[in-house]
């Protein structure tokens, strides 16, 4: 086994996903197969290969430091499910 049910439940929790017992069991099986397949890559010798961080060939895409935002505050708030006095409103979060 490449992955345990506990690990699947932990990852789900980090992603704020709530799995039923059946789902957890099903995904554990599926993820195990995926990891098994990915594991094929371990057979390759990549000691001399630089890790890839980006698949496009562009480098140094930069912008000038100019404040040129034309987005209106009303537009920013337009899709918010809840808002008040110009703020986004969310369920209370205090860490």
């Amino acid at each position, binding site marked *: 086994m490449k992955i345990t049910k506990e690990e699947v439940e932990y990852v789900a929790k980090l992603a704020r996903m709530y799995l039923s017992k059946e789902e957890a069991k099903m995904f554990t099986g599926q993820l195990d197969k995926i990891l098994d397949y990915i594991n094929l890559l371990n057979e390759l010798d990549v000691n001399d290969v630089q*890790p890839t961080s980006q698949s496009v060939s562009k480098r140094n895409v930069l912008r000038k*430091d100019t*404040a*040129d935002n034309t987005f209106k505050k009303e537009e920013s708030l337009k899709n918010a499910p809840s808002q*008040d006095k*110009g703020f986004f409103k969310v369920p209370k*979060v205090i860490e």
Partner: protein
Amino acid sequence: MEFEAVIGLEVHAQMLTDSKIFCGCSTKFGNEPNENTCMVCLGLPGALPVLNKKVVEYAMKVAIATDCKVAPLSIFARKNYFYPDLPKGYQISQYELPIAEHGRISIDLDGKKKVIGITRIHMEEDAGKLIHEGVGEDTDCSYVDLNRACVPLIEIVSEPDIRTPKEAALYLKKLRQILVYLEICDGNMEEGSLRCDANVSVRPVGQEKFGTRAELKNMNSFKFIEKALEYEIKRQIHTINNGEEIVQETRLFDTSKGVTISMRSKEEAHDYRYFPDPDLVPLLIDDAWYNEVKATICELPDDKIQRFVTQYKIPEYDAEVLSSTKQLADYYEETVKHTDDTKMASNWIMGDILRELKNDNIEIDACPVSPKMLAEMIKLIKDGTISSKIAKTVFEEMYRSKKMPDAIVREKGLVQVTDSGAIENMIDDVIAANPNQYEQYKAGKDRLFGFFVGQVMKLSKGKANPKLVNELLKKKLT
């Protein structure tokens, strides 16, 4: 058992750019909530971040100023966590391959230099602001303002080379001075443009292995940092002496009680699952770019202090005070362009000028006395037009009215009396008015000499040349 503390600091500095790190929103402080937002910093689907070139150059400047090695290749990473202060669900930061590593800052510890290593410097975006109370009527809600989200920060991580709260404060002061000198951060801790977290552990003296560390947060002034560290070190030593274990945790400094408190809700360890951000391409810094940025770096405090000592022949202490800010150092250099007495100029700036500025709570840029005016006044002292004592009066008037010193001297009739005849007359008057003291002096009571000097100066309203008064008195009294 004797313990020592091991401290490392993580400093976040807000960069003084016009726009955010990955979008064209303004970084202006104090705008209406969510006014400085767009699809990028709101994390709307499909919006792509584009890196602000100035942020890269500012980070390079800090790296060069702290002797770091600037990476020819660096990349951005996503730090994943769910919290409404960043709507994307992750913060764009750097993890593997940060922009710079392996630097140092030296601090002055009671006359001795101590080097504090810098582990790494990286660029990242700030998070938005959450307000939990006082906005709307709904008490079950938090209110989110994303103006600060995506504002550029650089994080400077020190090696665990710091041993005392005092060293921590010195390191932070030095780092702040460099950032402000480079004009890339305003250094304001109270307003949060410079923030500091500390990793603290203790270990028995002589032991190499580090103890379990706590991370301290919420120390928004130099004073609080020293206090929080002092408290935390004592707490850890006390815990160990009681036979208990130190728990690795985040602790908040309670400024009103002066204690650190465990953030219990953080019991669940954070798992940020960093990975390279596919929305941003790698950043390459070649020698040409590096040298171009390096050439724009101004003279830094340490170099300035050394130059002041050799060029102006002033004590190191003076050079340090004068170099505390670039503006003050410029003021001094402008002053000594107009006068040769570099030490007298230093004395007046460190003494009277800094005192007046502090009283009025203003910066040197707003000083009513210009370097030229100060130099002119020093000239008047040097050529004997006014005495040092009268100069204090001239200075006060100059500071108040912004009039040139020679004009003040003329208007108020403050010219020093250097006419021997006039001084001799005054001496005669003083002797005539104090026959008893005169007899006692004649009988051998030498101490009374000072009394006569004082009386003559008083009679001249402080305007008599003290050196001449001394000389002539000696003649008259013998």
